[in-house]
């Protein structure tokens, strides 16, 4: 059998060049992958940092909100409110004084009947409200009524 021989073969420098190119291709490919990886990991780190910053801001806000709610609680605490009321000139109601402490009946209102109670006094429809005129007339009428008239001046 005849062995077939090529007329040409690649020159050694070409083979070396080919090898170098192959290696370079691999390196370039590796560098591309590495750069993509680095790029993405850098972006990811940046994102994580942003998230961390936002988390920190959120935590700070949560703490601040909690603190403000408590500060509001302090400002509306019983002792402080009582002090403010006293400073504003409010005085305690004398509950025994029937002129001061009174209930204002609302016409037509019937309180809820507690189904558990069998003894509750059944309230009949309420009488027409004997409200003070101040509660039923306009400010204009009220002032007009209160203004001294010629007859009263006489």
């Amino acid at each position, binding site marked *: 059998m005849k062995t077939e021989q090529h007329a040409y073969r690649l020159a*050694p420098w070409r*083979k070396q060049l080919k*090898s170098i190119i192959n290696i370079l291709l691999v390196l370039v490919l590796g560098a591309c992958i590495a750069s993509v990886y680095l790029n993405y990991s850098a972006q990811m*780190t940046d994102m*994580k*940092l942003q*998230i*961390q910053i936002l*988390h*920190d801001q*959120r*935590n*700070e806000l*949560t*703490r*601040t909100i*909690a*603190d403000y*709610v*408590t*500060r*509001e*609680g*302090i400002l*509306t*605490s*019983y*002792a402080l409110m009582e002090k403010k009321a006293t400073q504003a000139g409010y005085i305690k*109601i004398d*509950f*025994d004084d*029937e*002129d001061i*402490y*009174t*209930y*204002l*009946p609302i016409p037509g209102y019937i309180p809820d009947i*507690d189904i*558990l*109670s*069998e*003894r*509750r*006094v059944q*309230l*009949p*429809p*309420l*009488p027409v409200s*004997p*409200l*003070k005129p101040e509660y039923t007339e306009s400010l204009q009428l009220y002032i007009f009524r209160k203004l001294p008239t010629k007859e009263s001046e006489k």
Partner: protein
Amino acid sequence: MNSNIDSKFKKLAICLSIFAVLVIGRILFLQTNASAVELKETIGKAYEYTTLSVSSERGNIYDREGYLLAGNSISYTISLKLQASNTHGEFIANYLAPILGIDREKIIQAAETPYVENEAVEVPLTNFATKEQVDKIELAKKSLNERNTTSFESKTRVFENLNAVVYYPNIYRYYPDGDLASNIIGFYPYLNPASGASFGIEQYYDDILSGETIQKKFSLDPNVPESIPDLPKGASIALTIDRKVQKLVEEQVKLAVEQQKAKSGTIIIANPKNGEILAMATYPRINLNHYWESATTFTRENKFNPAVMQPYEVGSVFKVITLAIGIDSGVIKPETVFNDTGTFNVMGIDIYNWDRGAWGPQTMIGCMQHSLNTCLSWIAEQITAPVFYDYLRKFHLDKPTGIELALEDYYPILQPGDEGWTEISLPTNSFGQGLMTTPIQMIQAVSAIANDGIMMKPHIVKAIYYNDHTEVIQPEVVGRPISAETAHTVTDMLETSLEVEASDALLDGVKIAGKTGTGEIAKEGYGYVLNVTNASFVGWGPTDDPQFIAYVWLQEPLISIWGSEVSAPLFSDVMNEIMPYLHIPYDRQRACLNSKTCPTEVPKNEYY
């Protein structure tokens, strides 16, 4: 020549390949080998990560009107990094002392604490700096750093800045009203959170108030970004108490304890129709922001919240229960007559009245009016022991009420057959001696009498606000120990009894029913001690439609030992003051609302 180079390349390639295979093999070995993995983890745990417990924000506690009773506040721990502070303590102190209000010398001493690696690294100056103080420090730091970078001085005096000053935010529990309702709320020890919440709502609902706690691994590498996971806030709780009413009752109980030189005082106000606790005041109390005072204020005989934690022999207020049992079981009627000879003999032991007197023939109203032990002993004998104790079980006096407060206590009731129960137990139990109940148990039991025989479970939580829903606590019927008719009869009898007696408990504008009690106290090793008592009163009203039930207890008053002289007037004082805030109209006002008595034409300037 070329083939020689080729062969060398081939050999190099083979060597590199073998090396690569070895490296990969080694990597795989390190990744999979158990001891190598363990070693890596150990090193990682020690040097790369730290595990910290992360908790969500604790839920708030509000009163029924929405006023904050327990919240969270922010504070900052200000520390000095010793490595940076050692050389210029005086400089740091000059800045920090006026901002933090801390003694200058103290700051210098802290700043110049010798730095020792891994041992003395940082010294805290305060745990409770405010945001404003931190802002001032930040401003000072910033201006100093700017000056340092621009001036020549910075090159020679590089240490003169505040970079050694660091701060960390803390969230701590704060109670805006201090001691208001402290016995109900309990406390969360912010200086030592690991010890957990103590007493009251804080302890009972610790799980849901504290929300979620997780263990998170944080990288020690500053280049690895870490964030605290988003944990939902703990649930918030609204109580049934009204802050205003609670405060007024607390003032009264404090005054009474001080005036009567009592060991402690307790008052509970509840709505018998739904079991809501409207006020539960005790004295002594502590400011919850100084929770550590609880260790010195409360003792075994004087507990944090006696209303639920301290069973005692209630004395004659228990006669209300015996009377109800007697009437409900049909052995007595209001007009039944008992002839009091001054003693009632059981197995050779004489039982006497409180005054050791003989009151002659008495109706049942008379028995209650004069609080005759002999009469109640007789009633108990008529009821018989099995029936009597069966009723006590129906009144749930043998178990805790289940109110949402931590450490609720109860005392088991001895019954026939139990060790320690004797024939004398039945008559003594009938007037509240030889058995112990807590005030909250009495409120629950007597609420059945005030609520047509229907016994409601006492509750102090109105609603729980979770992150995604709200749970409104519904009234719960826990039993019907007596009939409605019995409840009305007992109420009418006790109303009459108080009126005939002209009790100090009577209210000006509202008809009430109630009973005083003076319970003797057994001291360990001495038995019942003379002139040492528990003075109590239980009352409810308005009698035609009860809207409130109140229980008053003064422990060991010294000025007067009698419930009728101590607790009854205290009940009256308290109720007179708080009735308008409970929105319960006086009889005159209700009469006005009734068309039969309300004038159809109101004279000018008269308003009802």
